[in-house]
């Protein structure tokens, strides 16, 4: 780096503008925000009660297909519930699972990463050891085993996923912290008498935050997918609230006869996860300094 390019590197506004020019980031953020809005406004947006069943109109195809009805835009499920409404409400579960898991695992993983990375030495060996233990456990299998024993609920699902999938945070935060803890501004804070927690929170965290954000988006995507997979394996979140993974799992009974039951939530998951990943990628690109390197 040189004195020259620093004077011209993007300031905050520029960074925002840069963000806006990053197509993937914008797309990802837009879809995610849209989904959040849909989830929040579900009662307003959903044309029907997602739980209101009407067995006389079960398995209606989407409106544009033969036999579809305009008041059930995406058709109905096996209980005659409006598929669009369920899709809209289902976004809530996906987002709640995604966000909560991301938070829990984020807190656990980042804390471990910070501690290991900052203190180094034996503390780090111990943290590395914990990470290794975690990595060597097959995550999905353990989640499967625990949920099948405890029984699925939104809470268990979130806890199990959150308590299991913190490894990426830990690994990334630890490495990033290791790189920063030797920075001179950390030494300066130490000389000024700052405690380790103070330094971690005030000096290191801001510099690692973008890594955490990137991982968070990936983690969120993974949690959404895991929820879907567990639902597929019959260990999803129980009723009444529909989740997208559950909708696929339920719809799969009609995979060949009524494929839309699988395709609609499948596409929804795909788009949401894609958007989250795009957002993560965008964040990654944007957090890299411009110019040389």
């Amino acid at each position, binding site marked *: 780096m040189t004195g020259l390019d620093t004077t011209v590197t993007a300031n905050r506004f520029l960074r925002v503008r840069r963000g806006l020019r990053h197509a993937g980031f914008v797309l990802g953020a837009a879809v995610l925000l849209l989904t959040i809005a849909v989830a929040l406004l579900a009662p307003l947006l959903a044309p029907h009660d997602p739980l209101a069943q009407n067995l006389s109109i079960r398995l209606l195809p989407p409106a544009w297909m033969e036999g579809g009805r305009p008041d059930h835009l995406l058709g109905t499920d096996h209980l005659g519930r409006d598929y669009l409404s369920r899709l809209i409400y289902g976004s809530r579960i996906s987002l709640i699972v995604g966000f909560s898991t991301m938070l829990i695992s984020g807190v656990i993983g980042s804390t471990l990463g910070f501690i290991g990375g900052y203190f180094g030495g034996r503390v780090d060996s111990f943290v590395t*050891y914990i990470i*290794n*233990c975690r*990595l*060597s*456990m*097959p*995550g*999905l*299998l*353990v989640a*499967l*085993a*625990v949920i*099948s*024993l*405890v029984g699925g609920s939104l809470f268990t699902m979130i806890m199990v996923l959150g308590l299991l999938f913190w490894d990426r945070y830990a690994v990334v935060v630890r490495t990033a912290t290791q790189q920063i803890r030797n920075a001179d501004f950390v030494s300066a804070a130490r000389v000024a008498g700052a405690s380790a927690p103070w330094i971690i929170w005030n000096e290191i965290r801001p510099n690692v935050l973008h890594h955490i954000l990137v991982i968070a988006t990936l983690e969120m*995507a993974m949690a959404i*997918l895991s929820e*879907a*997979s567990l639902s*597929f*394996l019959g260990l999803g979140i129980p009723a009444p609230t529909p989740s997208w*993974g559950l909708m*696929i799992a339920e719809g*799969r009974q009609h*995979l*060949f006869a009524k*494929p839309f039951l*699988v395709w609609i939530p*499948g596409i929804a*998951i*795909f*788009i949401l*996860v*894609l958007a989250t*990943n*795009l957002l993560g*990628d965008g964040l990654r690109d944007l957090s890299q300094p411009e110019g040389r*390197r």
Partner: protein
Amino acid sequence: MAAYVRSKVIVSLLVLFTVSLVGFALLHLSGDLAATLAGENASAEQIAELRHTMGLDRPLLAQYASWLADAARGDFGLSFFARESVLTMFLARIGTTAILAVSALILAIAVSLPLGMLAAVRPNSWLDWMVSGVALSGQALPGFFLALMMISFFGVTLRWLPISGSATPLHYVMPVVVLAIGAIPALMRLTRSGMMEVLEQDYIRTARSKGISSLRVMWKHAMRNAILPIISLSAVQLGTLLGGSVIVESVFAIDGIGLLTYRSIQRGDFPVVQAMLMFVSASYIILTLLADVINAWLDPRLRQKSQ
């Protein structure tokens, strides 16, 4: 070197031990085996009796201790249901899963390495965009969804491929592809980003300034360096593939260890689940060690560190 290997091995054993303890505790604290085991029409008394005969009413630590003592001798107990040695059950199925996982990894590497490299050489080209697109979509596709769609398309509509079982090599095509698609995004991204990073290194400029062909620069100078993290990731991926074959094996009805474990989880056959846990952990540890060794062999700096 000896000291390095020794400490690695000790740590690995410690990790295995911890995993076994955590797994054991998780499995035994969260469910009642006897209820599962007694069968569907069993009464409460029958269950209690069974609990006693199976020793499930002993203190957890005592149960663990005897499990550990047996496991240390290579005896992972009998399956509750099949009443067969867990080890035998594993050995009978490991081959199938290994074929599946290894082929998937090979396919994934065969796809992601060249594409990732090309994308790195020509950033922002259409190829790069395609690679990013593939990686992103692959990441966003639930494996089971993909599997079902492939079955319905290639199996039912086109009838090109056999749908279930593992009778012929052709049977492996769909499951391997589904598994590989799960592994490709990470590998492809890492290849691309690793390669891009390496291409920016000073020594690449040095190599270019010597006038050697760009192909040679790529293979001899860039690849040797960029491959290191890919090898590590491949090891991790292989472990993940072994552990993550549950969905693929159950959808494609392939009787490997993934399906075995899934069934065992479903009916609470804990000795099998526990053994699977140990197996995946051990293979993860061995694979990463192997990756370390290969990397040390390729990178003299790591070699020195381990001396």
